[in-house]
């Protein structure tokens, strides 16, 4: 079994340890004997996006984000073709924003985004950002579980029809929003850094399953020893006064 992952703008959109997500996906595949190939793609580089099972785009600082905009928009057809061919998408922060309608910056300038989904993002003023630990309850592909992460964003994302989950602690899509991220059967888009996947191995495994689906159908994943992962998550949840027992006992595979 082989999984092909495309890591977009690895050199520019890599903030707050987002590269850790790639490392987790790689390790969790390798431990199960799933061959995983990670290709990177930066500005001007030619890639056939629909050849990939999983598309990853992280967040970047404002300046870096400005540098990739044009290049990303020029790949819209390629991304659309990949969507039609059931590529799975994991989008963090800036990556999340860019799949919506537009981004309106601090100065009121509106930058059109890829417009795959209805949501749009409006930057708050420079001194106000959603920053801090965050806990989210989600139901992903029929499994309910709690997730933890760290959010740090000035963009307020509105008009999200299908969020990733319900915020138990922290802000989410906007200041004190009840909901976090965007999700459908193919795309998971979120503001959660941390990075996201190390402490949320359930999401990592579900992303691997989503990625494998288009060539291999539903694949059952062999369970791994996640003692450290569970403990790290439990400690964060209890600090946020959320009972870890609220966590689903169902294994992710």
């Amino acid at each position, binding site marked *: 079994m082989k999984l092909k992952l495309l890591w977009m703008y690895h050199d520019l959109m890599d903030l707050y340890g987002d590269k850790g997500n790639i490392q987790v996906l790689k390790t969790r595949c390798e431990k199960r004997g799933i061959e995983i190939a990670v290709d990177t793609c930066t500005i001007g580089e030619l890639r056939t996006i629909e050849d990939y099972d999983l598309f990853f785009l992280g967040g970047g600082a404002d300046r870096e984000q400005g540098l990739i905009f044009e290049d990303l928009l020029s790949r819209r057809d390629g991304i659309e073709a990949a969507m039609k061919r059931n590529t799975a998408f994991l989008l963090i922060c800036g990556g999340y924003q860019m799949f919506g309608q537009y981004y309106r910056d601090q100065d009121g300038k509106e930058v059109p985004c890829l417009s795959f989904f209805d949501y749009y993002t409006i930057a708050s003023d420079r001194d106000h950002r959603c920053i801090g630990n965050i806990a989210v309850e989600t139901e992903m592909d029929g499994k309910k579980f709690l997730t933890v992460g*760290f959010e*740090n964003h000035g963009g307020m994302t509105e008009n999200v029809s299908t969020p990733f989950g319900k915020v138990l602690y922290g802000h989410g899509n906007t200041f004190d929003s009840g909901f976090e991220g965007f999700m459908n059967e193919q795309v998971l888009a979120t503001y959660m850094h941390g990075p996201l996947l*190390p402490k949320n191995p359930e999401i990592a495994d579900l992303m691997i399953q989503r990625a494998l689906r288009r060539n291999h159908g539903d694949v059952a994943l062999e369970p791994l020893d996640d003692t450290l992962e569970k403990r790290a998550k439990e400690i964060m949840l209890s600090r946020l006064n959320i009972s870890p027992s609220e966590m689903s006992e169902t294994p992710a595979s």
Partner: protein
Amino acid sequence: MDINLFLVQKLHSVLSKAGRGGSLPGTLALKLDKDFLSRFQMPGRTVLVTGTNGKTTTMNLIAEAMKANGLKVVCNHRGDNLNVGIATTLAIASDDQYRVQADAAVLEVDELTLYRTFNTLHPTALVVTNFFRDQLDRAGELETIIRKLMEVTENFEGDLILNGDDPNSLRLADNAKKAHVYLFSMAETIKSRNISDEASEGKFCPRCGRPLIYDYYQYSHIGRFRCPFDGFGKIHPDLYVSSVNFDNGTFTADGHVYHSFLNSSYSIYNCAAVLCLLKACGLDPVKADEVFKNYKLKEGRNEVFNLSKPCTINLVKNPTGANEVMKFITAQPMDKNICIFLNDNDLDGCDISWIWDAHFERLNDPLVHTIVCSGRRAYDMALRLKYEGLEDRIRVIEGDREAIAWLDEANMESFVMATYTALHSTRAVLKKQAGRHRR
């Protein structure tokens, strides 16, 4: 006589007689008078030192080198670089009319608050060591820090001492049209590399956005870079370290051989900043050599405690610093245990994701035995190491006393890395534990 100033000075003298230093007097001062800092009459030479890494060391070296040049100097030597610390430093050094009693003030200022205090402190010189990614949740992004600093230096007419090998620092030169810019730089050494896996910020030309080309890297994104399109990075350094001899820890600048306090590229950059500042001020740089030679690093910077076997502790607070500490640790040619204290209190930065930007795979070395993970985020640290294939060497011991006791009982040389708020308590535990061996 000003009653606030009197109270603050009195409080300090009472506290220090009781053996307690700290920023409490400054905290009180700023509570009583929010404009307290602006009341001081600063000395004719006021040097501010800022940047991401090496601030405390550079500030102390400058202060000592100025003393060696015969000046009376006041400085925040412990690195209390926030307003309260600076207020304390200035209050105890001034007379009852807010006149700072010294020929020069050398102040380390936190890079996040500098833009607010810059004009208040009336600097005659600003030294920038470097800019790396650091504690992003507290800082906002690096870009914001640099932009704010560019704004406040736009009309600065003093001396601007910049690291010419750091694209992030060099950006300030473009905007500070009225300042006298002095650049320090270092030639390629045997430790320089043609490629880097550490450079995260500063890959692109700030003028045109195109990728910068590097002739060589010293560490992280520090090195000789240039933009082939607009010439950004083509510099004429005012202080150039022309060669480094890592066999005996010496370097040559302006034809003179200096001794570094630590045998590493980043510490020689600190020395270069000092020499550059001295030249800019018209002081004798050669007098700094004795200072460099005898400088003892501050607490928690390569500090050794004698447990059953020696234990060396280092502060880590961002990927670049952690990478350099790990290079140092793995260069030590003996079997060793390592202990990492990871906290996420406000002063550490609540976001610990930076550990994923640091190269912990360096610890995957046959001489590294057990890696103890401790502190408030011990399990996050353990996870980080697990995903570098170090699973078998991890041991989580959350409490600091238990972790240090374990290192001691293991009877093997050890190296501790601690984040800011863990440093103080861990040093106290180490001191106590080392005391047991003296009896």
